[in-house]
């Protein structure tokens, strides 16, 4: 069993909703992330999937303390990042880097690539001389498949795929252990997506990186992750190895999600049965009582679902589900009630 690099316990991120002009009253909270536990082993890839508004990006940002943490622990290599402050936090960030969804809006349009990549090196005091830092930039650009002349160019001069490579190089140049990638390929064309996915896999193999990949595309997440966690309205509803999750999704939400993903194969598309969910995601400011998925769950029961919030429990080795009726649904004892 490889050592755990990142361990999250009971993480909560609540954003206050404020009203009033003179008196700044807090009238409620948005429960963006509400009690998440997860572990990422060194060198592994943890994929986080869920629909918009489920809190997956907030979770990813909270790990690097880009969002305030309301409660809980984020233990990175033995140190609780959630409790760090000031200079110690800044130093810890060198080892935890982020890749953002839209490279156009996360790269400064007025900085050339060399300046973008060198900024972090200077901030963290890496490299003794400008020449040494320059060398490091060249090596990193080479690793992500960009030519040397890219250094003097500006972000707008590159195509979408190349820009994402710059974003990856920016994260990589500091030599991090953990990379949190928030929707790294969703802004890219299909043919470019595959290039970037392969690049991320190659870099992991060469540099022993640990990834937390956040995406809404189940197929992408399954492809690059060892372990996948499915989020719904601020909490994990299922966690399993990517193979087990696809072979045997146990949570009703995961089953619905999987049945909704279109597969580029007419034979499969014609045969399959969709589990259509009714309605939309409830507001995270006012989540349903009990199980948060119960308002849309096709298997919802009259008891327990509305009163008791199910905990994420291990059903099989490495396969955790947060549902009161996992066994009954799997055995067919409970059927879809429509």
């Amino acid at each position, binding site marked *: 069993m490889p050592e755990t690099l990142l361990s999250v316990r009971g993480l909560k991120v609540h954003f206050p909703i404020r009203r009033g002009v003179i008196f700044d009253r807090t009238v409620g909270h948005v429960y963006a992330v509400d009690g998440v536990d997860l572990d990422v082993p060194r060198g592994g890839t943890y994929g986080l999937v869920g629909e918009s508004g489920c809190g997956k990006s907030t979770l990813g940002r909270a790990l690097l303390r880009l969002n305030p943490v309301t409660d809980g622990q984020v233990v990175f290599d033995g140190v609780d990042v959630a409790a760090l402050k000031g200079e110690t936090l800044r130093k810890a960030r060198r080892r935890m880097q982020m890749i953002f969804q839209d490279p156009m809006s996360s790269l400064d349009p007025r900085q050339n690539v060399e300046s973008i990549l060198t900024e972090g090196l200077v901030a963290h005091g890496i490299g003794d001389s400008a020449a040494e830092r320059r060398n490091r930039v060249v090596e990193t650009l080479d690793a992500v498949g960009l030519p040397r002349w890219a250094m003097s160019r500006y972000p707008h001069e590159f195509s979408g795929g190349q820009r994402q490579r710059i974003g990856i190089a920016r994260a990589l140049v500091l030599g991090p252990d953990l990379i949190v990638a928030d929707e790294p390929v969703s802004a890219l064309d299909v*043919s470019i997506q595959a290039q970037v996915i392969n690049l991320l896999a190659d870099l992991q193999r060469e540099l022993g990186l640990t990834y937390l990949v956040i995406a809404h595309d189940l197929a992408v997440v399954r492809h690059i992750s060892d372990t996948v966690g499915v989020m719904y309205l601020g909490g994990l509803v299922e966690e399993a190895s990517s193979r087990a999750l696809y072979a045997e999704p146990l949570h009703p939400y995961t089953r619905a999600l999987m049945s909704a993903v279109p597969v*580029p194969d007419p034979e499969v598309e014609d045969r399959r049965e969709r589990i259509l969910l009714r309605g939309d*995601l409830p507001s995270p400011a006012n989540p349903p009582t009990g199980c948060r998925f119960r308002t849309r769950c096709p298997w919802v029961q009259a008891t327990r679902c509305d009163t008791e919030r199910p905990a994420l429990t291990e059903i099989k080795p490495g396969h955790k589900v947060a549902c009161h009726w996992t066994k009954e649904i799997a055995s067919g004892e409970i059927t879809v009630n429509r």
Partner: protein
Amino acid sequence: MTLLDVQDLSVAFVRRGEAAVRAVDGVSFTVDAGQVVGLVGESGCGKSVTSLAIMGLLPRRGVELGGKAVFDGTDLFGLAPRDMRDVRGKDVAMIFQDPLSSLNPVIPIGLQVTEVLKRHRGMKGDAAGREAADLLDRVGIPDPKRRLKEYPHQLSGGMRQRALIAMAVACRPRLLIADEPTTALDVTIQAQILELLKDLVHEFGTALIMITHDLGVVAGMCDTVNVLYSGRIIETAARRPLFAAPLHPYTHGLLGSIPRLDALESEPLTPIRGSVRDALPWASGCAFQPRCDRPVEACVGAPPELDATFTGHEYRCVNPVRHSND
């Protein structure tokens, strides 16, 4: 019966002092009544411009439009603007990608739906209101009477797209053009909307042009698929042969670069190298040649013609992908 016949459509954007940009370059395809036709391609391939041209929504200035779009015997490009306004929204309707930017934010949903009914079906007051509520109900919006009074920002993304679909089908159009109708939506909502579109096609016999970059959506919806690259159709086939045996290296490459949820093991993806920016101009050969993994000498020089197999599978390539069972 052929409902829409697009012949040799070309669209070029011209600016003074700059070379013309040819977004669509000789695109021809037909749509039969009740048929779902897909236009597939990556950004910049001309799929959206094609749909805007058919709808007559391109600006007049700075655009050179060529070819014909014959709808039920009439060339839409030959119509006067006021005649086109009678066709648009009545016989031919369109659904856009981003429902928030295609709805007017300061007008309640109800007024926006009844506007169509008043303009094209001559309905008035209460009758129009009742019909609008009916339409919202049919596209699966709960509590339609209340929703009619609400503004677009009060609806969720899926609801907005449903409202837009309600407006588009208000006059039972014979042709519906959907430009990336589910791209801005989550997968579970996408499944709902695709199901709704299928039902509408089925129920009203509406022909549907589905414009998308998502081959998964195409596989589940379309009868015929046209794959576009750099402004030209490079492959046309019924969906089953297209997915089972793609002939053009581009289509083949696209299918190889999509991670599949149902793959047994995660096989390495085989991406297409380079990007759309590397395209050659069609006049000097095949636009896809710089990214192709099967280039031959004949690729450069003259543009490849659209060829067809005896089963009617059309492709624009001099060295098509061979499949062992051919």
